[in-house]
């Protein structure tokens, strides 16, 4: 019974964390923000107010122990966000990123 419970917890958690098709994000990756997927959503408003606007360059400087969330640097300050929040923006991976 305990095993079943464990699987339930893991599944519940995993479903809400990251979609299975999320690309791998590593330290040193640099992106340019092209646009927001849904400019009117609450999340977008939050991202915008934090300075994550069209044309901004962000760099991933740190990744949490389990891969999510990530810490990015933009315009001199740091913001941490979950991968699904990061990919709520349309991003272009920049050429000279550390790969």
């Amino acid at each position, binding site marked *: 019974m305990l095993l079943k419970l464990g699987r339930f917890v893991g599944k*519940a958690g995993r479903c809400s*964390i990251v979609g299975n098709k999320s690309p791998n994000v590593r330290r040193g990756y640099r992106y340019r923000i092209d646009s927001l997927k849904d400019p009117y959503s609450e999340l977008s408003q939050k991202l915008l107010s934090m300075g994550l606007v069209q*044309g901004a360059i962000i760099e991933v400087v740190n990744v*949490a122990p389990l891969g999510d969330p990530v810490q990015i640097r933009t315009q001199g300050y740091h913001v941490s966000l979950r991968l699904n929040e990061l990919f709520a923006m349309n991003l272009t991976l920049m050429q000279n990123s550390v790969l």
Partner: protein
Amino acid sequence: MTSNSVTRNSLPNGSGDPRKKPLRVAIAGVPNSGKTTLFNALTGMRYKVANYPGVTVEKKEGRTVLPNVGEVIFCDLPGTYSIFGGSPDELVASRFLSGLIPSEEQPDLIICVIDTCNLERNLYLASQLKDQGRPLILALSMNDLALRDGIHIRKELLARNFGAQVVDISGRNKTDLSSLYASLSSIPPTASGFDWCLCPEFIEHSKTLGVRFAELQKVSASPEQSIVLGMSLLTGARASAHPALETQVQTAREALALKGISAGSVETRDRYAWISSVIAKSVSFASAERNRGTESVDRILTHKLWGGLVFLGIMALVFQAIFSWAEAPMNLIDDGISYFRSFVSSWLPPGILRSLIVDGIISGVGSVLVFVPQIVILFFFIAVLEESGYLSRAAFMMDNLMRRFGLQGRSFIPLLSSFACAVPGILSTRSIPSWTDRMATILVAPLMSCSARLPVYTLLIAAFIPDTALLGFFSLQGLTLLAMYLLGAFGAGMIALLLKKTLFRGSSTHFVMEMPPYRMPQPLNILRTVLDRVLLFLKAAGTIILACSIILWFLASFPQREGASRAEAVESSYAGRLGHLIEPVIKPLGFDWKFGVGIVASFAAREVFVSSTAMLHNLEEEEPSESLVLAVKNERDPKTGKLRYTPLTAISLMVFFVFSCQCMSTLAVCRRETGSWRWMAFMFAYMTAMAYLASLATYQLGSRLF
């Protein structure tokens, strides 16, 4: 009502004209900008904290008298990244500035604190404040750090290009208020807004929508305020809740889209573009490398292995501090209370009044006061971790794990603190912006076994769990204690997950969190934070504990019996009768009426279980001692002569204590932080139900299996 377009060009003098109104100044700024430091420096200890009417947003106000200015009232607005949005903090900030909060007067002047290491984002908020069309001063903080990073701000150029007065308040160790004081002596002209906007159509549509919105809300808004209202609707920062207006908003968005303007992002994009040009004209950058120091530290502190170890180390230190450093002051307070009790006893004639005061009031309130040192230490450490910036790193590391249980990273420290005491834990949930996450954290916080449960566990384990070692190494008693703690944490996780899937289903929560650079905590800020929170605790908990102590005293002391022993007196009192009354209900849990009395009594404060059990065995104990342990262990059923309690009974009782909500202070603070009695009632109800069911399951299954 106050007029919306106050322009004070005359110099208020400080010669004490009683009819002169005090100057009202609002202090705004993004979180971590140094706004609170400024407020503390301006007001010292002359401040008061309350809530804005109808919301659980904190309001801080302080007064001071300045030469050449007269009396000044400073109002610290909630720290927000923008004042456009619909979150409670942003709504309160924007309404306060427009004079729309009924009990608050509109401020005469706004000071916006600007963290010079983060110019773009701070000026973003400042530009929104400028739109309001009120007198505005930009106060530059942390300029010394910015200079070190190579950022050189030319104040006059910034003032001219931005369009507001600029003063520097940075100081190496202390805030430098001289230039701010100087600028307060003559009100700057009102700032004119919207010069950042490159699309006149956007402004036009905003104005129309804003005017309509103001009409629907039945408020009178100045032209600037209408435009601001309209912009917040058009960008989607706020929803209007008027269907007709929503359609209008949609039409406006489509009209703008036809012209190639995306209403959702144009405002932010144009603002940042304007801010970039302002910065380019007013600030010079010596080097492009900023914030590298913080990053290298972060790489260690958030590292899987090293970060985890550092974290465990810090947590171990905090708990060690709480349990060992607090011991001396706690004993001191304990002794002080005992002394006070005997003093009052000797002073008053024996009788009901003396009993009420000594056994009821002083004991009851004293049992709360004894915990104050632990709470102070806990608040102190949380404040230091918060000020230094480490708290956000802890949230960052724990977010993934917490999400598996329906919570988020920022819930971690509040829940961890609840292992010492749930009250500071619940108070520190203020850092969680998402309402549902915050509620979930508050509701499960009491399940983390707090230090008040420890005397109960200690007594029962010592009496009923054999002192043997499992595998020759692990003490069975220690393992039982650990099991109780783990059970509480596990229960919290399950309940949070359940809440997420039922009550809080479908609500959106965001993690997006700024990670400020590491900073030295400011002593004055720490002092005031700790003081504020301790006073809050004493006020919320103290009153309710006092009431409960008196009620309990009454239940346990009446009706009186002459010549009866202590135990007999308690048995025939209302409390004893209550114990007998609930006996059939608690029998399936393995308890008898004596435990029933203890459980009823401990609903005021958990530690009372020990002292009430002692009373029933004719002892004067307040803590688990040898004699009490033996008395409880050897308790025999008068009818059968067999031992009444078994280890299973003890475990069942401990399980009951793990899950039940027996702390009036926690309920009081819960009510205060959630702003309603409903959630407090819910917390009590679900925990009591859980305690009963868990205890039932434990005892029934246990008696079948063993």
